[in-house]
């Protein structure tokens, strides 16, 4: 599959993860992010925002990667790092299937990096 295919898959999974955190996880995102920041937990607040905004960042990176693969490689690495860290920390509080989404995101994301560097 081409870079375009893997990149689209990566962005779609990122949208699913963002949608889950924003709407499916039973949290009031704005409220929770502000609450965490105010209580001295900017790390958790930043993580929430990053997962939700990652699809937009990935789309920008894909558009910026026409000449050089590096914007994409960096964006996907940061995005996957956020997902993996979140899953490792919050696994017992999330629905049981979220690890499968994270695993799929990692596989598709790594494939997109391989194809980005190969093109």
């Amino acid at each position, binding site marked *: 599959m081409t870079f375009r295919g893997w990149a689209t898959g990566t962005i779609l999974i990122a949208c699913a993860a963002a949608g889950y955190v924003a709407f499916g996880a039973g949290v009031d995102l704005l409220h929770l992010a502000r609450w965490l920041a105010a209580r001295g937990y900017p790390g958790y607040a930043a993580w929430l925002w990053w997962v939700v905004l990652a699809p937009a960042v990935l789309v920008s990176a894909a558009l910026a990667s026409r000449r050089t693969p590096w914007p994409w490689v960096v964006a996907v690495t940061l995005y*996957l*790092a956020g997902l993996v860290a979140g*899953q*490792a*920390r*919050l696994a017992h*509080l999330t629905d049981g299937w979220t690890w499968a989404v994270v695993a799929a995101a990692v596989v598709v994301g*790594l494939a997109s990096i391989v194809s980005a560097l190969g093109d």
Partner: protein
Amino acid sequence: MAAGVLVLLLGIGGAVLALSGGDAESVQEVADQAVEAAEDLDVDAGIDLLCEKPTAEQQDELEELIEGAREESGTDDPDVSYEVSDVPDGASGTFDLRVTSDEEGLDDAELEVVVVVEAQDGRSCIAGVEDPGNGEEEVVGEEAD
């Protein structure tokens, strides 16, 4: 390159797991850690202690309780005491929690709850909070719905 990223991801996952607080393994440990978490409003400890994530409604209730206590006492950080009793041996069971305060405006207020501790996947965690009066359980998490 992709292999490097994979190693990095595995490292991050492993590091987060290693840095996460140790799991409680008995009702006593849960009770001790819960009091510490409540005193400091420690989100990290809260994440470690709960069996399931609280619902949005439960988050609101907690927030209202905190806001209410602040307003009544007129201070941002009201001095609250937590008294734990009836802690059973073992990895699961219930313990009583009594919350009181000497702050002016709060000295009449008192909150008594029964905290339900369950053992899940080798760790003891807070599964819910009961009203001691009617024995009706309010489960933390989606089971409450």
